[in-house]
C-alpha cells in the first residue's frame, strides 16, 4: 500500500473538508452521539436505532469524506469509500433484520471496555488530534472522519450481547488501512483504530467461548 500524502496534509484536508461540507460533519458528529445515547437507552429499539445511526455515519464517511473529498488526494479513496458504504449497508441490514440488538455498557469488563471504546471514539481521539497541534478546524470528529467512527463502531458492536463476528468486518478492514497508514506516515495516533478493533474483537471472541 502506498500513501500519497503526509499526516500534515491529511489534517489540512480535514480542515478543508469541514469547511466545504459544513454543517454536515457537525451533524454527523451529533448523529454519532445519538447512536451512543440510543444504545444507552437500552432495549432492542434503542439498539436498532443505534445501528441505523451507525449505518448513516458509514454512508456519510464513504460517500462524502472518501469519495467526494479524499479522492482528490488519494487514488485509493474511491475503493475505501465503496467499502465504507458497504459497511453502512451491513449495519442497516443488521438494524433492520435482527431482533435482539440490545447494547449493554455496564456490568462486566466487556461492557466497560465497550463504553471506553465509544468514549475513545467520541471524545479522546478528537481531543488527541487537537492536542497534536493541528487546530480545532482539523479535529477528527466521530461520524465525520473515518478513524474515530471506526473506533466508535467497534465499541458499539462490542456492547451487543452476542455480536455476530461479521459485524466486525467493516471496522476491521479500516483498522488495517489505518494501521498501515500509521506505519507509513510514522504517525502513532493512527494506530488507535487497530488497537481498538483488536480489543473489541478479542473480548467478543472471549465472550463467545464462555457462552
Amino acid at each position, binding site marked *: 500500500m502506498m500513501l*500519497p*500524502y*503526509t499526516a500534515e*496534509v491529511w489534517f489540512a*484536508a480535514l480542515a*478543508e473538508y469541514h469547511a466545504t461540507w459544513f454543517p454536515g460533519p457537525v451533524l454527523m458528529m451529533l448523529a454519532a452521539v445519538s447512536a451512543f445515547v440510543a444504545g444507552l437507552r437500552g432495549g432492542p429499539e434503542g439498539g436498532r436505532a443505534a445501528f441505523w445511526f451507525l449505518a448513516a455515519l458509514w454512508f456519510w464517511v464513504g460517500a462524502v469524506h472518501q469519495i467526494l473529498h479524499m479522492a482528490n*488526494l488519494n*487514488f485509493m479513496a474511491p475503493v475505501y469509500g465503496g467499502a465504507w458504504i458497504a459497511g453502512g449497508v451491513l449495519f442497516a441490514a443488521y438494524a433492520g433484520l435482527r431482533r435482539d440488538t440490545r447494547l449493554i455498557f455496564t456490568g462486566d469488563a466487556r461492557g466497560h471496555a465497550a463504553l471506553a471504546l465509544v468514549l475513545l471514539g467520541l471524545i479522546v481521539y478528537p481531543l488527541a488530534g487537537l492536542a497534536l497541534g493541528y487546530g480545532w478546524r482539523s479535529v477528527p470528529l466521530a461520524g465525520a472522519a473515518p478513524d474515530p467512527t471506526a473506533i466508535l463502531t467497534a465499541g458499539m458492536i462490542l456492547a451487543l450481547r452476542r455480536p455476530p463476528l461479521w459485524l466486525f468486518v467493516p471496522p476491521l478492514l479500516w483498522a488495517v488501512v489505518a494501521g498501515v497508514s500509521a506505519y507509513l506516515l510514522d504517525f502513532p495516533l493512527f494506530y488507535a483504530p487497530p488497537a481498538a478493533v483488536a480489543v473489541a474483537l478479542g473480548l467478543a471472541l472471549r465472550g463467545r467461548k464462555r457462552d
Partner: protein
Amino acid sequence: MPDSTPNPLSLAPYSPTRRGFLAASAVSAAALLLPSGAGAQTGGRILRAIPSTGERIPAIGMGTWITFNVGGSEALRRARLEVLRTFFARGGAMVDSSPMYGSSQEVVGWCLERLDNAAGLMSADKVWTPAGGDALSQLADARQRWGVGRIDVMQVHNLVDWEEHLAVLADEKAAGRIRYIGITTSHGSRHAEMERIMRARDLDFVQFTYNVVDRWAEDRLLPLAAERGLAAIVNRPFREKRLFRMFGGERLPDWAAEFDCRNWAQFFLKFVISHPAVTCAIPATSRADHMEENMGALYGRLPDADLRRRMVRYIESL
C-alpha cells in the same frame, strides 16, 4: 521471465548476455574516463544530453510524489511555491508528476502560475490507466493542470497498458504536441519487461529506481539505456527518505569533499548522477531548505569510478 532482484548491497557480478556485457563494458569504460579524484564538470551546472536530440538538461530535477499532493490548503501550497522557487533559482529544469499523485499536478500548476523564474521548466508527466480516460484525455488534463501549452516528456506510468499508450504518445509526438516519450517503473519492479520494451520500442526516456543501496539498474537497465541512446531519469534517489534514516546519523566521510559534497543529500545524489548513463535524478522534497541542499549536487565535481566504488564500500560498512 522474473525480474532479477539480487541483494542490493551485494557486489557479486551478474551473468550478462554478450550484448549486455558489451553495453555494460562501454558504460564502465565511460565511467573510468572520469579523471581520478575529480569530476569532469566544474563551475556551472552539471548538464546531461538527451541522446535522441542532444538537448542538454540539468542533471538534478525534482519529483512531486507525496510532497506536492497538498490539496487546496493555501498555506501548504505557499510552502511548495518556495520549494519550486528555490529549484528554479538554483538552476533546475525537470519537474516530474503523474495523475497518480493526487493533487500534485494541480499544485505544480498553481505554483508555476505564481513564479517568475520558471522559464527553464521541462515538464514531465505520465499516463496512468487507473486515473480514468484515455491517454489523450490525460494529456489534455495534464496540460490544463500544469497550465502549459505542451508537456515536454510524457511517459507511461509503471508500464500499465504500455502498448496502447505508447502508440498514442508516439502519434502525439509526431504531431508535435509532446517533445519526448518514455516509460517508467519504480521500486526495482518489472525490470525484465522494461528491458524488453527498451529493446523493442522507439523511446526517448526511461525512468526507474536507482540509488546507492538499490543498484539493480546498474546490471542491465543503465547499460541498455546507454546502448539504445535513451535518456535515463532516476526516481527514489533517497529511497523516499529512508537513506537519511539509515545513514543520516553517520558522519559524512572527509573524502566526500573531493567531489564537493557537503551533506548526505549531495552524497546520495552525486552517486546517482555520476553514473555515465544517468541523465537526471528527480528527488522530491516539501522543504525549500532541503531543495537548496539537493540542488547543491548540481554543481561542483562528481565522483569518478574509484570514488563511486569507495562510496558503495563506505555505505556497506555502516
